[in-house]
């Protein structure tokens, strides 16, 4: 009898709720029952609420079982797991799960599907075809395609990717760099991690395309240290891609050479800010640099450097393989394409949902997410990480687009959506926004370094009822100063969550 393939994700969320133990138990039970099983450690499909999501391949179709624990395995085998038999944990065919198939999976389409360390599996699903297309069309045409796609920086700032690439391509220098920002520090975000653990070579391909487009032969991935499993997967995937000739000198016999070095951060949030990241990549304290000069002109070691987020770079291969127009057809107006939204915090069905821009918060939180995990009403949703506004239920019909969110005093950031229920003390969240800024500030500029600490104190006074009105005026003035006088988004956007709470939940300051 042929060996049956069983898929158990090796992905941080799945492993955090027992996937490794499930894999070990499957190996043990299949041996003791004399079953011929091939265990595949795939990435995650992104439906974290179903993890560990175990799949068995039956007649070419993958059948999913949800929330499998090690103690379920013997029972599953007895019920006929290898034939995809019924069981209370059986969900049915993976390609019929609504949460997964109703997405617009442009960037994450391989996550869960393939074995992340297999070059063959990557190639079979169109891997490196974008790079091949790029090498055939020339660097100017590559930049034109990226510009035409409407792709904007997915790290949070939303800067048009094509323009950034053009700037670096036009800069003349003996050395240029591609620096991938994988310092995914915003609470509520994990799509970079999902991609790197589930489809690492897609990122390498995007970086190589960027290198070809601007004339860089060296890339860096700056990965946060909080992702040790991601690190191991990236290291092995880099080795595999190099061995297969997709990284290194003269890629696939072409004139183009490109290699990637992995750097691990050391627990500093502000190193996700691009210039602080450059300092850290140079082996220094992660202190923010003044801009200009733009990194695309003078970046890493003073050389022209493209700094893009993981998702930005990983969106590029398909733009070249399938066409810029196909990507631009998603979304609308100035927010084109897709964004992997991350449903997090107090939510029933948390995970990554890649959708075209324009979907509303209500759809994501209520229809996809199923409301809160605690079953209580939603009070607020923080969109865009610790520097993003808290959105009240009255604004849930706002479409998730860069401009629409700016209009309500918020930002999409990296697409993190953190849900809070009605038991939340919003004044405490406002205080935390300032406290977090005080903890993580690099200390270079005064509004951020000092303002954040003063902010905590002023909020404490307001909550204590000391000269409430006067202190509220002071807090607003402090927010204005931080926003306008800080060097980077750390101090500059900490006021966003604070102001949103002052506006929408003033009663929480006096309860």
């Amino acid at each position, binding site marked *: 009898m042929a060996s049956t393939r069983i898929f158990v994700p090796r992905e*941080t*969320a799945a*492993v*955090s*709720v027992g996937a490794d133990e499930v894999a070990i138990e499957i190996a043990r039970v299949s041996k003791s029952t004399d079953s011929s099983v091939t265990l595949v450690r795939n990435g995650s499909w992104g439906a*974290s*609420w179903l*993890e560990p999501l175990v799949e068995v391949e039956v007649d070419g179709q993958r059948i999913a079982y949800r929330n499998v624990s090690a103690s379920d395995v013997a029972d599953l085998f007895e019920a006929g797991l290898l034939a995809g038999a019924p069981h209370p944990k059986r969900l049915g065919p993976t390609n019929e799960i609504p949460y997964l198939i109703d997405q617009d999976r442009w960037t994450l389409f391989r996550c869960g599907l393939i074995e992340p360390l297999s070059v063959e599996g990557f190639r079979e699903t169109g891997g490196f075809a974008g790079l091949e297309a790029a090498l055939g069309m020339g660097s100017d045409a590559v930049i034109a395609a990226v510009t035409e796609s409407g792709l904007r920086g997915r790290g949070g700032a939303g800067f048009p990717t094509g323009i950034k690439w053009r700037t670096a391509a036009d800069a003349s220098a003996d050395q240029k760099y591609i620096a991938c920002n994988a310092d*995914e*520090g*915003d*609470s*509520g*975000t*994990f799509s970079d*991690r999902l991609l790197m653990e589930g489809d690492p070579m897609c990122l390498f391909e995007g970086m190589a395309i960027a290198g070809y487009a601007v004339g860089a032969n060296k890339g860096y991935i700056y990965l*946060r*240290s*909080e*992702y*040790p*499993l991601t690190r191991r997967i990236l290291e092995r995937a880099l080795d595999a891609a190099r061995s297969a000739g997709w990284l290194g000198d003269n890629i696939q016999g072409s004139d183009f050479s490109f290699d990637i070095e992995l*750097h*691990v*951060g*050391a*627990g*500093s*949030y502000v190193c996700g800010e691009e210039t602080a990241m450059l300092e*850290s*990549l*140079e*082996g*220094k*304290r*992660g202190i923010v640099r003044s801009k200009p000069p733009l990194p695309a002109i003078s970046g890493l*070691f003073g050389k022209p450097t493209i700094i893009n987020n993981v998702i930005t770079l990983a969106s590029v291969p398909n733009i070249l393989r399938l066409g810029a127009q196909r990507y631009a057809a998603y979304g609308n107006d100035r927010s084109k394409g897709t964004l992997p939204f*991350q*449903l*997090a*915090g*107090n*939510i029933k069905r*948390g*995970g*990554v949902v890649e959708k075209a821009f324009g979907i509303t918060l209500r759809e994501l939180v209520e229809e996809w997410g199923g409301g809160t*995990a605690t079953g209580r009403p939603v009070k607020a949703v*923080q969109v865009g990480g*610790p520097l993003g506004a808290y959105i009240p239920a009255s604004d849930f019909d706002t479409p998730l687009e860069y401009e629409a969110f700016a209009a309500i005093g918020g930002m999409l950031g990296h697409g*993190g959506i*953190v*849900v*809070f*229920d009605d038991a*939340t003390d919003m004044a405490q*969240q406002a205080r*935390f926004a300032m406290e*977090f800024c005080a*903890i*993580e500030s690099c200390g270079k500029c005064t509004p951020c370094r000092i303002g954040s600490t003063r902010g905590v104190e002023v909020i404490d006074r307001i909550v204590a009822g000391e000269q409430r009105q006067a202190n509220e005026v002071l807090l607003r003035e402090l927010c204005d100063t931080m926003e306008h006088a800080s060097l980077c988004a750390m101090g500059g956007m900490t006021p966003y969550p604070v102001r949103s709470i002052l506006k929408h939940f003033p009663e929480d300051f006096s309860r």
Partner: protein
Amino acid sequence: MTEKSFDPDIVSQIVARHSGRAELLLQVLHGVMDAIGWIPDDVIRQLANELNLSRADVHGVVSYYDDFRTSPPGKHVIKVCQAEACQAMGARELGQHIERSLGVAMHESTTEITLQPVYCLGNCACSPAVMIDNKTYGKVTLQRFDELVESLAGGR
């Protein structure tokens, strides 16, 4: 001269593994953390020499980043996420429970345990999250935490 609490050769090997490149200081320090568990003063001196940096350069980097400790940690390092997505699922209560049940305050160490708050482990759909000895755990209820700690004690 005081006796060194580490083997200088190990540090030299780590530097060599990174080709002596000063810009890889963070990676070298991670290597030291993996090998020794913390960054003794003598290591700062040695790294400055071998990487051709000033001691201030190395000290500055060590003191800037949360990952680099300048005193020995407990046998187990527990990092508790205290960021928003975990707060929404009771991370503050979990943090207090951990401090109480282990008798260690955040940022403090005993010979057994080092306890640290962290701001996001990237496991935000399975919050609250805790990292124990570099492994991330999700959906950590108070009870689950107690069980995890018990298994640590059992495995020692």
